[in-house]
Every structure is written in structure tokens, then in C-alpha cells.
């Protein structure tokens, strides 16, 4: 729900939060006595101006340490701004850290009661509140009578989330707490946020899960280095943030030579050894940059020192974050045909119009025994290359697809 003409419930104007940093602890005292400033100010947040309207679900994205949590704490009221104006209208419930205020020696029940009291639940409503929390957290009375220290971390987080959100605030502030527990509980947590939203409450949250931000928020802000870098429509802000993240990850690729690559120690004594790995494109051999949708050939040279030993060759393409993109091996086709025979062997793989999209990738090459289980020789994370792509589709790989539309459907 986006109601642009209503007065904002949360308004920040030029808000900043600074911390005084002293070189030595004694400097603090010296400053107090001499009144001559000797501190530096570290700004966790600076110049932040935002308007959040009633009923809005507003997301914050940004890297770790960008100041998202500081902003949430300012809105929740646990921190005070060093400069600027901040106004919040309505009752705020904040979930800044799961289980803040939980005592491990106390029972789940006592912790929930205290959590309720901290969130302003009155004695008369406590029984209802407690029952609601227990039901949402799916913990039995037997479990709730035990000290919290005996809980599994999943149980603990479920209880903490349930206790913090089983209240009825006007504004809900949540810091990174929507991805706790198993999938079933995550779904429940999200449903609860959705219900807050449908009830016209204002929700302000930050998450590293950009999918969640996209699907929950009407508007978002990207906080970078303590400042608002982008603010507005969620899709616009999140896309800008993603682009920035990718650009930062795409460091200059270096191509370690085969010899410098990490090899399994079996290498030098292995009966079959890797000799060379090459990537061939229209632009030459082992280029650092490859245009997407080019035909690429992977050539692997091995040498066998045992005439009677059958072996296989496999490869994996991995992204620079070690995520496997694609892998295959000569022992995958059935029936497989292992290589055998003394001396050099060459295996090559042709990728017609390699459908990898923009990103940094590496190769891992394996020589395997006839069962495909034992690694005889390997070179991992070698031949780094970067794919450049000129088309607009995004993601990891290009999936063949066809757009279809029907006119007058269902009329």
C-alpha cells in the first residue's frame, strides 16, 4: 500500500549518528578537563533524510557495516541521533536482535513473560499473549518450562521471533530476523509480516535477502557508507545495489598457470598426470575476457604412465565464489569409454555459443580412475576468465526461452 499524500509516520531529516573516537582512553578525560577536542568523529550514519508513510513496508539494503542497523536503532529509539531531526509517530515494536533480553538460565515461559512486559503487554493480557507466542513458536508447555539454554538454536530463534512480534504495534522495526528457523517457520514469519502489512501497519526492515526485500517492500533505500545512496521504488533500488555488488566482486581476473594452481599432492606420483589445460576461442588461447555466446573449446592434455590403467577426465566451471556452474566427465555417458594407454592423451570439450552470462569464472580439471571415484590428479580454480555480455538478459546462464502471448484470453 502506498499512500503518498499521508503525513509520514517516520521522518528523518539530515540525521547523523557519530561516535567519538579517542586514540587513548586518557584522551577522553583530557578532553573533558581541557575542553580542547582531541577526538575524531566516526560517522556511522550521516545526512540521512527519509519519509516513511503509514502502511508502507520499507526495506533497507546495503553491505555489512553500511549503517542499516544504526538507522533501525535510531528509529526504534535505543540510540539517539547526534544531529538532524527524527520523528516517529506511533507505538514502535523493534526486533533488533533475536533474543535480546533472553536469559539462558530462565525458562522459556519466564523469558516470554519478560519480553511481553518489555513490549508493554499488561498483566491482564499476558495470558493471551503467552498462549499466542507458544502457539506461533510451536513449542509445547513442557519445553517452555525448561531453561532456554537447553533449547536448540532453532527453537530459541522461533521463540524469540514469536515473542517479539506477538504484539500489536503501529510500527514494526526488524533487523535481519526474517530468515530464521526452517523453511516452514520462515514462511510463517513472512506471513506474519504480511499480516502486519495488510493491517495497515508500517514495517521497516533490513535484510540481506534481496528476494525478500523485492517481494515485501513497496519502497526501499540503499545505505552505503552511512549515507543514502538510492531511495525509491524497490525494484529500482535493489537493482542498483545488485549492480554495484557485482561490479565490486569483479576484480581483475588473474590466470594462475597450471603449475601454480593448487594440485592434489598425488600429482607427481600419479600414474596419470595433467599436463596442460587451455581455453581456445576465436580471439586466441586462454584469453582473460571472453564475449558471451562465443564458441569456446576446452583442451586438456594428460599423460599416462601405466599402460593398463583406464582413466577418465572431468571438468567443472565455477564462479569466482566457488559456486559450481557446470561440470561433466568422460565417465558420465553410459556406457562410458575410459581412456587408456601409455603416453600423452588429449581430450577436448566444445561449447557451441557458451551461454554463460557476465561474471568471473574458473576451471577445475580432474583426472579420475575408472570408477570415477578416485582423483588421480587435479588442478582446481585455474584459468580464470571473465565473460562479457552485451545482451540484457541477466543471471548466471542464458536459458533458451520463447515469449508467447495470447490475445483476448479469458474475455
Amino acid at each position, binding site marked *: 500500500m502506498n499512500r503518498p499524500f499521508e503525513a509520514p509516520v517516520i521522518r528523518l531529516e539530515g540525521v547523523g549518528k557519530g561516535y567519538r573516537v579517542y586514540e587513548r582512553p586518557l584522551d577522553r578525560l583530557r578532553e573533558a578537563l581541557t575542553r580542547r577536542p582531541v577526538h575524531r568523529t566516526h560517522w556511522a550514519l550521516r545526512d540521512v533524510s527519509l519519509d516513511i508513510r503509514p502502511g508502507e513496508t520499507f526495506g533497507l539494503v546495503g553491505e555489512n557495516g553500511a549503517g542499516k542497523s544504526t538507522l533501525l*536503532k535510531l528509529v*526504534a*529509539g*535505543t*540510540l*539517539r541521533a*547526534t544531529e538532524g531531526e527524527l520523528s516517529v509517530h506511533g507505538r*514502535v515494536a*523493534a526486533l*533488533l*536482535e533475536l533474543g*535480546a*533480553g533472553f*536469559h539462558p*538460565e*530462565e525458562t522459556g515461559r*519466564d523469558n516470554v*513473560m*519478560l519480553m511481553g*512486559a*518489555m513490549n*508493554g*503487554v*499488561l*498483566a491482564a493480557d499476558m495470558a493471551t499473549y503467552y498462549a499466542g507466542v507458544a502457539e506461533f513458536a510451536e513449542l509445547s508447555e513442557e519445553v517452555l518450562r525448561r531453561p532456554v539454554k537447553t533449547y536448540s538454536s532453532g527453537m530459541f530463534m522461533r521463540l524469540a521471533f514469536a515473542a517479539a512480534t506477538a504484539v500489536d504495534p503501529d510500527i514494526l522495526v526488524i533487523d535481519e530476523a526474517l530468515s530464521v528457523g526452517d523453511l516452514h517457520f520462515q514462511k510463517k514469519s513472512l506471513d506474519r509480516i504480511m499480516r502486519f502489512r495488510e493491517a495497515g501497519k508500517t514495517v521497516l526492515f533490513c535484510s540481506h535477502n534481496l528476494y525478500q526485500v523485492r517481494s515485501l517492500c513497496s519502497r526501499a533505500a540503499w545505505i552505503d557508507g552511512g549515507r543514502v545512496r538510492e531511495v525509491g521504488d524497490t525494484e529500482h533500488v535493489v537493482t542498483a545495489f545488485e549492480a554495484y555488488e557485482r561490479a565490486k566482486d569483479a576484480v581483475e581476473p588473474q590466470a594462475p598457470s597450471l603449475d601454480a594452481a593448487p594440485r592434489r599432492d598425488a600429482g607427481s606420483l600419479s600414474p596419470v598426470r595433467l599436463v596442460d589445460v587451455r581455453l581456445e576461442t576465436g580471439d586466441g588461447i586462454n584469453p582473460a575476457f571472453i564475449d558471451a555466446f562465443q564458441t569456446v573449446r576446452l583442451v586438456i592434455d594428460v599423460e599416462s604412465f601405466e599402460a593398463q590403467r583406464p582413466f577418465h577426465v572431468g571438468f567443472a566451471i565455477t564462479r569466482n565464489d566457488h559456486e559450481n556452474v557446470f561440470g561433466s566427465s568422460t565417465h558420465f555417458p553410459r556406457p562410458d569409454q575410459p581412456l587408456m594407454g601409455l603416453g600423452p592423451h588429449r581430450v577436448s570439450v566444445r561449447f557451441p555459443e557458451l551461454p554463460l552470462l557476465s561474471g568471473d569464472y574458473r576451471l577445475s580439471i580432474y583426472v579420475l580412475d575408472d570408477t570415477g571415484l578416485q582423483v588421480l590428479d587435479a588442478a582446481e580454480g585455474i584459468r580464470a576468465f571473465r565473460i562479457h555480455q552485451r545482451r540484457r538478459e541477466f543471471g548466471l546462464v542464458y536459458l533458451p526461452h520463447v515469449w508467447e502471448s495470447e490475445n483476448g484470453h479469458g474475455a
Partner: protein
Amino acid sequence: MSAISRANAQLFLLWLKRDVKSRYAGSSMGLLWAVLGPVLTIVLFYVLFAFVFQVRVPELAREQGYFYYLLAGILPWLALSEGLSRATNALVAHEQFLQKQVFTVGILPGTAVVAGLLPQLFGSVLYFILLAWADLLQVTTWLWFPLMLAVQLLFTLGLGMALSILAVHVRDLVHAVPLVLQFLFYATPILYPLSMVAEEYRFLFLFNPFACLIMSWQAALLGLPLDSSVLVALGLWTLLLGAGGYALFRVLKPTLGEAL
């Protein structure tokens, strides 16, 4: 009572319960430690001062008079020194927590002070039984006890709250306050009666707020004579430390969010 103050009262009680429980939970003898510490302290002082130093209280000239005198002063002292030390540390120790949970900050030093009071209340019950046994229990004590308790509470709450917020800015207080209290213990007529002090120096005790409080306690519990100047000083100190301390806390409370 408004909904907010009712919610705060409830939170205060729950937090107090947790504070008391968690202090002794986990140790096998639990509450026994809470009793053993003060009891051993009192026995030590009694043996040392009644028998080794032969201190006598002229106003309470009877067998074991010193014992009753010692208890009258040391019971409130242990409560207020424990309460103040813990109150000073209350906000500093919960810094992380206060960043992450919206909380009525005053509850932290408040419960620390009140928790310190519990052993005193427990001890006072035993003390009253001993007094009755020794035929020393005054009728007026029943009147004075709640009044003195209220004064002590006001006094320590205000001071404790002010110290707790000051300690956020001046960390050294966490270490300094227990030390100063230890010093003040000997500068307060608990182990010795004021009559043992040379007459020309007695006025100095009026400048020690704790001395005024403790002397009033002794007078209230044992019916000892009390100079009216002490009562006046106690009134002024209670106003200054109790109301003043609370006012200072209110003024400085916003700075907590800045310092965290």
C-alpha cells in the same frame, strides 16, 4: 495508573525477580551464599570489635549491647552499599542489551537498589526477633522502621540512578564507587558509636550522608538519643541525593542513547 506506568511496574517486578534469581542460580548452594556472606562479615566484626578492641556502647549499657548496636547499623549499610555498587554498574553492564531492546532504562539501577534491600528485610525480621528476645524492642520502632526504610530507599534510588548514568560517561565510577563506599564504611559510626569520637570532630559526620542515615537507623531501631542536627542533615541529604539524583538521572537520560 496509566497503562505505561502499569506496564513499567510489571516490568520492574519481573526484572527484579530475574535479577535476584540469576544472582544465585547455577550455584549448588544457591541462596545460602546470599546469607553466608553477610553473616560471616557480621560475626567477624563482632568478634573483632567487641572482644579484641573491647568497644562498648555507653548508650546501650547492657550485656551484648554492642552486638545489637552493630546489627542496627550494618544491616542497612550492607543493603545500600550493595545496591549502590550494583546500580553504578547496571547500565554499563547492559550496554549491548540497551542498544537492542527498547527498555525503560531506570528499571536497571532501580532493581539493583531494591534487590540489595531484600537481605536487609530478611535480616531485619531476625533482628526484630532478637530484640524482642532481649527485651530491647521499642514500640516506636514499629513506626520508625517503615519511615526509615522509605528514606533509605529514596536516598539510594536517587543516588543509584544518578551514578548509573554517570558511569556510562565516566567508566571509572564502576571501580571508584565500591572503593569510596568501603572508605565511607569506616567513616560512618557503624563499628563504633559516635560518642567515641572526640566532641569537636563530631560535626564532621553531618557531612557524610551515610553517617546521617545510619545514625538515624540506630536511633530508630534501638531508641538511642539522636541529635536533631542529624535529622535535619538527613532530610537535606535525602532531598539532595534522592530527589536531586533522580532529577540528574532524568536530565542525563537522553545522553545514554548518544553514548551507546
